[in-house]
């Protein structure tokens, strides 16, 4: 390879001479992985120095999306220009691969890190060698929890990919110019994703932000009630909107009003033709009858079970 100044846009060609990519890389972080990083930072915040860790996840072959599914903190030591990554890194990667064999290392993260040559060195570590992202480019996720004065702010997270810059190759090493760890970082779009299962949980957390301990709802009926209350609020909003439209007092500059309007448009058009009132009434009644039947039969089975276990003990005890 010819030694030359080498600056490549990482979005167009990957850092390791792979065929050029036409699509932009994007990063999706699972909410659980992100929360885990935040929690571990909270846990470690008394220690000095920076926190770095490994990101695990998967890449889709068709799209250029990288999913970050899991993370763990890696202990390291810094000594001037030298740094050492603890060997536990490899063990943890092996453990994660056991529980989810399809996942691999996709990159690394740092918390409250300032930009210096260290970042290049670590990025080099995660891009090459065993348990690295090779042959794919590594993702670097930077998370800022504090502003420059050291007080906490709303977390800011950004993902980057990097291309090496500077001389490398045989000639460079011959001329003693080779320098590992020089990169150009460019930001890639990032989003947080979660499954429907996680969503209800996240919403529950969000509703209880003020509590130091979030209770887990014990009762499904209570959850139904809270959902119904939410529905009530939405209906009120809708009625309010419709009233305003009728009276012509709608604020056309409010983006929220536009959203409601669009929502109504898409949902009302696609509604199937409604059944007649009688049909609806009879199908709802029969649904109630069915539910009552289930309720009754299940209670009957329970009672029978209770009686049987009491009788068993009595009969057996007599002997």
């Amino acid at each position, binding site marked *: 390879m010819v030694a030359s100044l080498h600056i490549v846009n990482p979005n167009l060609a990957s850092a390791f001479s792979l065929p050029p990519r036409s699509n932009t890389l994007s990063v999706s972080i699972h909410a*659980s992985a992100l929360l885990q990083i935040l929690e571990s930072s909270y846990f470690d915040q008394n220690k000095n120095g920076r926190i770095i860790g490994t990101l695990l996840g998967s890449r889709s072959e068709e799209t250029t999306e990288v999913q970050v599914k899991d993370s763990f903190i890696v202990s390291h030591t810094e000594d001037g220009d030298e740094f050492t990554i603890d060997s536990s890194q490899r*063990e943890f990667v092996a453990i994660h691969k056991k529980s989810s064999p399809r996942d691999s290392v996709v990159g690394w993260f740092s918390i409250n890190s300032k930009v210096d040559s260290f970042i290049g060195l670590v990025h080099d570590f995660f891009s090459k060698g065993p348990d690295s992202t090779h042959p794919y480019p590594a993702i670097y996720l930077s998370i800022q929890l504090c502003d420059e004065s050291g007080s906490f702010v709303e977390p800011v997270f950004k993902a980057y990919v990097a291309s090496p810059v500077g001389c490398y190759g045989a000639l460079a090493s011959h001329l003693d110019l080779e320098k590992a760890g020089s990169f150009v970082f460019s930001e890639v779009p990032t989003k947080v994703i979660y499954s429907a*299962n*996680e*969503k209800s949980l996240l919403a529950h*957390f969000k509703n209880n932000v003020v509590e130091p301990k979030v209770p887990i*709802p014990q009762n499904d009926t209570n959850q139904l009630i809270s959902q119904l209350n939410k529905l009530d609020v939405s209906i009120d909003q809708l009625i309010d909107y419709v009233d305003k439209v009728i009276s012509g007092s709608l604020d056309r500059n409010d983006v929220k009003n536009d959203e409601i309007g669009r929502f109504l448009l898409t949902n009302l058009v696609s509604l199937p033709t409604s059944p007649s009132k009688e049909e609806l009434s009879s199908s709802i009644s029969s649904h*109630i009858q069915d539910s009552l039947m289930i309720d009754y039969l299940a209670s009957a*089975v329970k009672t029978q079970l209770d009686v049987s276990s009491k009788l068993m003990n009595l009969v057996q005890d007599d002997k």
Partner: protein
Amino acid sequence: MSYELNASVALKIARSGAEHWPHPASGPLFGFPETPDSVKISHVFSFPTNNNHHNQNEEGFSFRSNVNLDFQERTLQELNKAKIGAQFSGWYLCSQGGRFITQSVLETMLQFHNQRAKSLDRQPELVLVVHETSKARQGLVSFKAYILSPQLIQTSQMREKFITKNLRTAELTFSNLLKEVPLTVRNLSLVGGALDGLIPDDVSTESERILALGNSTQGDLNTIEQLLETVDHFNHNQGNFHYYQRLLSREQQRISQWVSKREQENAATLKRNPNATESELLRTDSYEWCKHFKLPTEPSRLENLVLSGQIDAFCEGLINSADIEIAKSIGVQNRLFN
């Protein structure tokens, strides 16, 4: 006892359930005992066997498979090496209805309990965190934490273990095999702040699936299928026990015949010789008939308890979802037609 999950742990359990649905998933939990009575769970891993779906007919079977025990041990070692210092605190199970109540789960929990009981310092009880994936898919938050009930531990330490007499003494029934304990999720101020940025405010139609009429039908159908199967097992088990009871009563009949025959002989001897000493009479006490007859041993009632517990939980689940359906339907009916 009370347990607290880190927010990320709760999310990971939910995700694991979603990824492996409709198959069960399980894994070890690691955490820090705050006091002997409360544990903070900070790490969760998914068992390697969650990925082979074909041999997961029995829930929680995987707790004791060698692959998983090795995995659990190795993870713990690595956590300690990384100076995280978390301890093994229990398991999570993503399951449906009462399916998690199995003999295998209970026996594993007992086995670990006994191992830990041997160590000198008091360790917190191991917890079983159960997440119902089918409920989560309806938009409900469903996490429950269980520990072994004192009644079950007491019975397991008795001689002859799970026989009716012991069940009576310890007051162990199918409804108190496990004890539910309070479970909360730790709320970090930081995470709270982060959540605001993470979750969009929009009222999405997806999370309100619980409001849709008849949305639990699929889950209920599965439960009913499970219920029928479990009732069959239960009857089979009951049949075995009846067989034992018939055997027992036949033996008892033979013994009483034997005893009355001996008493008749004694009466005859006394008639002939009213001054006969006790040693001349035939003995009829239990010590004596034990030499001649052998009563069948009572089979363990544990399986019966487990099956009863499952049936009870299935029914409870059905009643619960039927109640929700009734509430919703009647609400709609009143509003639309009255």
